[in-house]
């Protein structure tokens, strides 16, 4: 997050009165919510068109309002999908990636209105409703993504405490090496506990464990418990090292949990988008095939 001095005020002579302001504007508030306003206008127009016309026998995708909303919706879906390509080129200006992302978010949300009105609230077990359901899945996962991107990075930063991810791993490695040396005088049973702790891959956890942050079978914790009764110097040293290892491990796990939450929605969002594009293609072609 960049900070700049307020322009036009010479630094000298102002002393403690220097003012700083943040120049950062996230993709949600980009240009004073420009895309939120545009998307809202689109929704209002769609709702007005839906309720001010009285199609017979009932509203559906095959009235002129339905076809218009469907065309807008389909174009929007294709354009929104292109963010996946567009994001690989980071540019600034009117069509900066940030502007594009802002439009992606708000126009994507407006699809809830546009596409739902396009259906005329007619649903069934068919490819048309499949496309709608996939679209809603994409939008809901995107909503989760917005929440994650707007709240989790600060939590991630707090958790790191100026450590890099590499340092988190290095810290555990350093403790592991010391543990390996310090545990040399231990008996077989205690040694096995230390080996189990050292052998445990911190990154071996699956999706649910990473998302929940609960590790009931943590080998480091088990080793700490196992060595708690020993009072010789070597055991106490190993135990201290294990406790430090546990603390580092917990930090790493919190980091993994936050990262998992930041990423997991994309594992729904992206495949569901591709599935949606396929279902949308089938939806449109099938309508014209049996025209």
């Amino acid at each position, binding site marked *: 997050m960049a900070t700049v001095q307020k322009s036009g005020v010479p630094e000298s002579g102002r002393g403690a009165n220097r003012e700083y302001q943040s120049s950062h504007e996230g993709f949600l508030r980009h240009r004073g919510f420009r895309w939120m306003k545009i998307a809202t206008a689109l929704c209002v127009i769609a709702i007005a068109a839906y309720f001010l016309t009285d199609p017979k026998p009932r509203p559906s995708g095959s009235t002129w309002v339905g076809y218009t909303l469907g065309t807008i919706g389909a174009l929007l879906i294709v354009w929104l999908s292109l963010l996946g390509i567009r994001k690989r080129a980071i540019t600034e200006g009117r069509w900066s990636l940030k502007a594009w992302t802002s439009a992606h978010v708000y126009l994507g949300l407006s699809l809830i209105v546009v596409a739902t009105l396009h259906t005329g609230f007619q649903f*069934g077990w068919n490819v048309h409703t499949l496309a709608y359901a996939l679209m809603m899945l994409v939008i809901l996962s995107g909503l989760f993504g917005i929440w994650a991107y707007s709240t989790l990075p600060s939590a991630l930063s707090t958790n790191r405490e100026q450590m890099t991810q590499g340092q988190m791993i290095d*810290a555990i490695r*350093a403790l592991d090496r010391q543990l390996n040396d310090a545990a040399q005088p231990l008996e077989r049973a205690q040694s096995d506990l230390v080996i189990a702790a050292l052998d445990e891959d911190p990154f071996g956890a699956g999706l649910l464990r990473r998302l929940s942050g609960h590790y009931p079978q943590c080998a480091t914790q088990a080793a700490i418990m196992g060595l708690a009764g020993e009072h010789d110097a070597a055991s106490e040293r190993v135990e201290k090292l294990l406790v430090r290892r546990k603390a580092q491990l917990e930090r790493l796990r919190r980091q993994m949990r936050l990262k998992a939450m930041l990423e997991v929605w994309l594992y729904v969002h992206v495949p569901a988008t591709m599935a949606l594009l396929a*279902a949308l*293609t089938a939806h449109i*072609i099938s309508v014209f095939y049996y025209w």
Partner: protein
Amino acid sequence: MTFRIRQIEITATGREIVRDRDVSTDTIAIGRSTENDIHLPDLAVEARHATMALHSGGRLEVAATGSLGFVRDGVDTRSAVIDSRGGAELGFGTYRVTVSQDTDGAVLLTVRQTDSAATRSGDLEEKRRFSLQGVLPGKRMVSWGLGLLILLAFLAVPIISHATRDPDSKKGVIGDASWNPGGLSLAHRSLSDRCETCHVKAFVSVRDETCRTCHKDVHDHADPQRLALARGNMPLGDRILWSVAHAFGKKGPGACQDCHIEHQGPTRLDAPSQKFCSDCHVRLKSNLPDTRLGNAGDFGKLHPQFTPAVVTDAMTRKRTPVSLDDAPRQDDGLAFSHKLHLDPLGGVARMAANIGAERGYRPGGLQCQNCHHKTEDGVRFKPVQMERDCEACHSLAYDKVGGIFRKLHHGDVNQLIADLSARDYHPSLPAGTNRERPGQYAPGGLYSFNYSAPAWHGLQLRGALSKDGICGECHRPTTINGKLGVVPVTQPMRYMEHGWFDHAAHKQEKCESCHAAKTSTMSSDLLLPGIKDCRTCHVGESSAAKDKVVSSCAMCHGYHTTAIGSEKRKPMATKIAL
């Protein structure tokens, strides 16, 4: 106070060389230059990088002296306090210094160089493990998999099946049920699994010819040229929409599917909304100046007055359409007063009460249904029949022979002439006058008085067909082809052949709500209600009135069969909430 510095070096063959040396001092220096106690030849290490001071109790204080810090247990720092018994690991550039306590109490500093520079930048592969990449199947693979699966199941299979099917086969197209956007109408439900029955050609909209393969005898609403004229200049919006529709290969306007919109669930297809009619009829007069029809757009707002076909000449039974606004009179050939018959205090009511239940008459006087009988379906009323509906009072008996009354044959003048001219009929002897008073009251007796009673001399042929005769009570006598007779009576079952009215649907109403019979004294009064009466309950589709019956054109009119169609129509089982 001894530091034991253990330097471990690895030879080219991988063999470790371990060198121990003891430094007996409180403070040692660490850095790249050779005068340091621990000499670390790495460019990332400063010349004098840090100092390490040993305090009592094995406590070790490490502080960076230059601008760069060092790593303690993987974490960057500039100073650290270490308990040598607990140990720690310090990093200086690529060198690692492990702090521990040797068995003799000396602080053991094990120095070794790690083999890669990756410890500085961090291992990218390792960092990647924080993400979900290795935990979940790849996004790209799942994306393509799902996309292709959907395209295959919902697009490729039905298209290939449709393109390669045998048209004569009874098997439908595989997988096209997933394309069905909504259930078919009640009439077409049996075709639900046979999409290709109507969708004959791919990418060609359903054609009227296809509909006509089954619906062979459907009439056009009117001559196609007149239909096109009536449609006239559509509003700009409609023209634009139709040009778009034509660009996509739709036929119309006027194609079957323009009105009969399918796939709207199990509904009836035959009652399209008024919009489909009003498109033309709302401005029919301007588009089709020679039409006899008035403009109609909405029953409540724009609909011409009814024009029933009224009998205007009883002799020829000619019927002429006349607007109810023009106060039409009918000439049905009858002489009849509804008011006289329905008056609850009049002579008719009295006579009906005398006859009573035998003919279904109630004490309150005659009711409409005593004479007007519903048809079987309840839609309209049968013509009044003299024998059934009038004769209880208007007797046609003219003679009595042996307890049997002889009656005239209603409606047969020749028979009437024959009956009244027959030899065995003696009109001078009134029927039933052969009884005599007894004793002194008998003719010739003391109290007998021969007054001249207004004797009825029986039914005379010459009087029967006169204005005051038995026929003249209800009929208008005339001469037809030189013979005596009466003006023929016409009782129209339907006045409005191009519309539909269902009496059964209105049975909750009283007859007099619509038919002003109680005040009608002449049979030439046309007792039909006008559009104003209908509008007290019925409004058009555009109305939002909740206490009215929203009525589309199709409630009363047919499209394909304007002239005769209503005859085929079944009574509507419409629930009307008022």
